[in-house]
Structures are given as structure tokens and as C-alpha cells.
């Protein structure tokens, strides 16, 4: 019996909601061997490592997947990003949140997700699933 990449990943042990994410916001990753995992079952931190990369003229810290990814689909409510990962590229994704103080109240909320591609230490594409404006906006080098 051959182990698929997805079989080697530690499971999250918590639901999305227990991790502070709405049930309709998650990634699905297809690895090079065809196996598939979802954020419903694993944490991104189990398959990624932190790296500082060039980012459209600046610097950004991203969590890059350390396993060979063929494709990643990120859903956030009605918004969707579907990236096929080209040869020589790595993929990152993250949840974007904001904490606001207003009228003597503090609120936390998720405002979307980002997903992107890194090549040679530089972000070459990023898509932002913007919950506030209900749009997907992208940048490409």
C-alpha cells in the first residue's frame, strides 16, 4: 500500500468554527500525487513554513506550503479563488482579519482570505477574497 501525501498530514482535531473560522471559509489543496486535503480536516500550519518574501516592491511574511501542490481552491462565502500551481512555484494562503476599537467597543472580524504564488522568493500573484466588498481582487507580477 502506497501512502498518499494527504495521509501524512496531522489532522486538526477541531472544527473550522472551533478555530474561529466560518464554516463556509476554507481551502482545498490537491497535491502532485492527486491526493486532496481540506481545511476542514487539517491546519495550514501543518503543511507550511514561515518565509519573508518580496511583495510588489515591499516585504511580506507568508506561510508557504512545503508539500508539492498541484492546485489550491480557496472559498470564502460566495467568493472563490482557484489557482493551478505552475512548475517552480510555491503557494501560500492566509486569513485576513481586523480588530477595531470604536465607540468604546472592540470587535474582531474576518474580512477575507488571501492566496498566492511565490517564485524564487517573490510573490508573483496574489488574490484577495474581500468579504467587505464581496469581490475577488488580484495582483500579478
Amino acid at each position, binding site marked *: 500500500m502506497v501512502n498518499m501525501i494527504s495521509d501524512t498530514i496531522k489532522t*486538526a482535531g477541531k472544527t473550522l468554527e472551533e478555530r474561529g473560522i466560518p464554516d463556509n471559509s476554507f481551502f482545498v489543496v490537491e497535491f502532485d500525487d492527486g491526493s486532496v486535503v481540506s481545511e476542514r480536516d487539517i491546519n495550514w*500550519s501543518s503543511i507550511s513554513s514561515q518565509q519573508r518574501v518580496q511583495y510588489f516592491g515591499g516585504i511580506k511574511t*507568508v506561510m508557504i506550503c512545503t508539500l508539492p501542490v498541484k492546485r489550491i481552491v480557496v472559498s470564502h462565502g460566495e467568493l472563490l479563488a482557484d489557482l493551478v500551481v505552475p512548475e517552480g512555484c510555491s503557494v501560500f494562503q492566509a*486569513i485576513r*482579519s481586523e480588530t*477595531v476599537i*470604536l465607540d468604546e467597543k472592540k470587535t474582531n472580524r474576518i474580512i477575507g482570505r488571501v492566496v498566492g504564488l511565490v517564485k524564487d522568493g517573490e510573490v508573483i500573484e496574489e488574490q484577495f477574497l474581500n468579504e467587505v466588498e464581496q469581490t475577488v481582487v488580484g495582483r500579478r507580477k
Partner: protein
Amino acid sequence: MASAPIITFRNMAGSVLVAANYVQSTLGGNYLPVLQGENSNLFYFRIYNNFALAAGIASAFNVQITSFDAISPASHTAGMSVINQSWIRVYESGYGENSLPPGLYTQFLGQDTAIGGSPAGKDIYVPEYGSDGTTTPYIRAGTNTNGVGFIEIATYAELPDVVGMYAYAFAISILYEWST
């Protein structure tokens, strides 16, 4: 890592803050409104992640600070001049971790930056140093060996010459990214 960062605004002693009130910077002006054409007092606050050291909390990456109008932070309308004209200024004044609250502290004076702008939130401040003293603008969650992470921010209001007598309210917003 697994769960969302737990961001709190606190003073240097670790008490939770729910507002930053700008007052006169002149001697004895602590309870008086800021005068037009003057700068307010300096107000310091700390942004902590996971102050209670809960297990499995994610670090907050790519931290940005900005300001929105008080009508609705979600609207991004920049409808009030406090935001539109970028009266609010911030800069990093320190950082720390590796300790129980209120945390070891290293002073650092960042770049004094006007935040807000139009459309609201356009002008942001990115902290120069992260909670661990590296040039990565993040606040580590402190669930491993790195203790309670925070960055300290100094802020003041820079009022234009013609303001009028009003009470202006606005939101301070911390944007960040994290992964499960």
C-alpha cells in the same frame, strides 16, 4: 497554531483599553479638549496577541494600523474629517515578549505616520519591528516558548487650524493575517 489570534488593546500595566481619548497636551490640560491648530497629548497603547497564553493560538502576521470614520468601519466612507484629513498619527514605541504580562519591553521609535486618509484606511502604518524584535511586522501568540507578544504604539491627534468645537469619534483598526 490553529485558532484565530486574540488581539487586545492594553495599557502598559496590562489593563484592557476600550478607547483612546485625545486631550490637550499643555500642562494641566489632561481633561481638556485638544485646541485647533495644536497637537494632542501622546497616548500609548499596546497590541497584544493571546495575552492569556491560551494553547493553539495563531500569530498575527503582516500587521497594519489604520483609522476609519465612526459612521461605520465597514462602510469605508471617510465621511468625517478626522479620517479624511489624517489627523491621527501613530508610530511604534516599543515591543516585547518572553515574559508574563505586562511583558519585557524594548523601546523603539518608529516612523511618525499619519493614518486614515481618503478613502478611509488608505494610509496605513506598518510597525517596523515585530514582537520578537525582528523586522517582521508580526505579533507572536506566545503559545510555545516565546511568551506574551506585543507591540507598543504611540498616537496623537494633529488638529488643523480650523476645526470648530465638536467631539470627533473614529475607529482605530488593526489588520493582520493568520493561518490555522
